[in-house]
């Protein structure tokens, strides 16, 4: 079913948006998300196509193998983020953005030229753990719900407060004794893990994986999710990811105009809502209005 497939892709969009959001939550504009998404996808593609033991005997790919892929992808991406994070996160603002785009590009070119990643053709025939899009929708929904839960808990946790403090004033945060470098690194690693987990599901869902999955374009698209939805509270990137992924499909009836309309939404969104569509103040106003009604 087309609609369910779109729903799955919207879920991926929301997850990747949350992956961009986490470093932003402590003021770090990292565009490395597609790189870790690609890593997750390659882990899934390689394990499921090159390791026969994982496929089991049945018609569909075992869920336990999928779980193992998720675990390994999280570990690999988390470890890469841990190693790269220390030096990279010393950069600030636009310099960090450029450096992380460079990371994504380096990874893409490597994947394009390595034999084990299938080169330009990539890896295809990735086995299916689910019969149809419904299973993927469920798995994506669960992963998204868990990630949202984590992000919403963050607002009440010490770690979340430290992240907000760093975003608002890093020097003040350091004077309060917040280990700013560690907090930023934790956010970066969490961001990488979420992107990698999404990549695992996406590789199976798309049935094929190649170097184009993690590109500069994807960096910009995931950033657009957050710019549109807002980056001050987790609901913003979720909405941005869902809406902007769905938009090209929803606009299909208008034909050739759709790319122009899509561009307009991305252009006009930040002008009308400079902090994104969803802000804590806006939510508070809505809540107050609901209570009054």
């Amino acid at each position: 079913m087309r609609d369910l497939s779109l729903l799955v892709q919207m879920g991926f969009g929301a997850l990747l948006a949350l992956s961009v959001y986490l470093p932003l939550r402590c003021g770090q504009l990292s565009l490395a998300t597609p790189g870790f998404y690609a890593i997750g996808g390659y882990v899934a593609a390689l394990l499921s196509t090159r390791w026969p033991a994982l496929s089991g005997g049945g018609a569909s790919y075992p869920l336990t193998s999928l779980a193992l892929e998720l675990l390994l992808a999280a570990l690999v991406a988390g470890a890469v983020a841990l190693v790269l994070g220390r030096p990279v996160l010393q950069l600030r603002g636009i310099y960090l953005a450029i450096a992380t785009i460079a990371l994504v590009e380096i990874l893409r070119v490597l994947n394009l030229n390595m034999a084990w990643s299938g080169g330009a053709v990539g890896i295809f025939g990735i086995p299916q753990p689910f019969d149809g899009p419904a299973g993927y929708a469920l798995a994506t929904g669960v992963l998204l719900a868990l990630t949202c839960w984590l992000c919403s808990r963050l607002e009440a946790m010490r770690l979340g407060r430290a992240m907000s403090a760093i975003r608002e004033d890093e020097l003040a945060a350091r004077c309060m004794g917040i280990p700013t470098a560690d907090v930023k690194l934790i956010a970066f690693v969490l961001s990488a893990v979420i992107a990698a987990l999404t990549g695992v599901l996406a590789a199976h869902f798309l049935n094929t994986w190649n170097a184009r999955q993690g590109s500069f374009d994807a960096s910009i698209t995931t950033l657009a999710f957050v710019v549109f939805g807002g980056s001050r509270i987790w609901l913003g990137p979720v909405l941005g990811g869902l809406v902007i992924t769905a938009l090209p499909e929803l606009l299909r009836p208008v034909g050739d105009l759709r790319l122009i309309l899509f561009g307009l939404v991305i252009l006009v969104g930040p002008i009308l809502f400079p902090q994104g569509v969803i802000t804590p103040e806006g939510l508070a106003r809505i809540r107050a209005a609901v209570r009054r009604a």
Partner: protein
Amino acid sequence: MSTPAAPPLLALRGVSVRYGPISALQDIDLQIQQGELVALLGSNGAGKSTTLRAISRLVKPVAGLIEWRGRSLARTATERTVRLGIGHCPEGRRVLARQSVAVNLELGAYLRRDRRAIARDLQRCYERFPRLGERRSQPAGSLSGGEQQMLAIARSLMGRPRLLLLDEPSLGLAPLLVAEVMAILQQLHREGLTILLVEQNAHAALAIADRGVVLQAGSISLSGSAAELMAHPDLKDTYLGEGEPGDG
């Protein structure tokens, strides 16, 4: 009979700091004993803030030694200095404007785990600064300049420092508020807190300090008891650069 002298709470020995090609501090020697209130004076760009940043390890000296109770801080991270008892209240207040007064204060106690003692300190803080108590759930950005300065000081106190580094708390405040801030510092000093007070308002600072140190272009040019400095004929004109042409 005399017991061997305890090391000073804080000692700077020959400390120099550079920002790239710019030399901000040269060969600074400064000792602070437990319980003292020392005023660090100097005109714009003299290196006052840099001295505080070096002590809290926000910048790393290129030469010299900084010792906390006889132990070198050379390998200490800023968050660790806070844990050791060095509270740095930075220049320009720097309250978190979007967060409430209460959250700002709680963040000041970020490294502490003793919830009950934190709650007690919060209560005491609202007693000491009643206006913060009244506005505890308002965003800090909505406070007046004077209230924000009080919040900045109160937030530093929430970390239970043994030494408070204060960077120009009188900056931009009306004279009445300056007096109010100084009265609070004097009170904290009486309660036993050691304070290194950076000020351009030499008169207000020396009125409550035990002694003063004057920085000029990154070096200490004058130091002495508060009374000596107050009586010094050239303090304002020569040392604080207020008599320079074009300075009104």
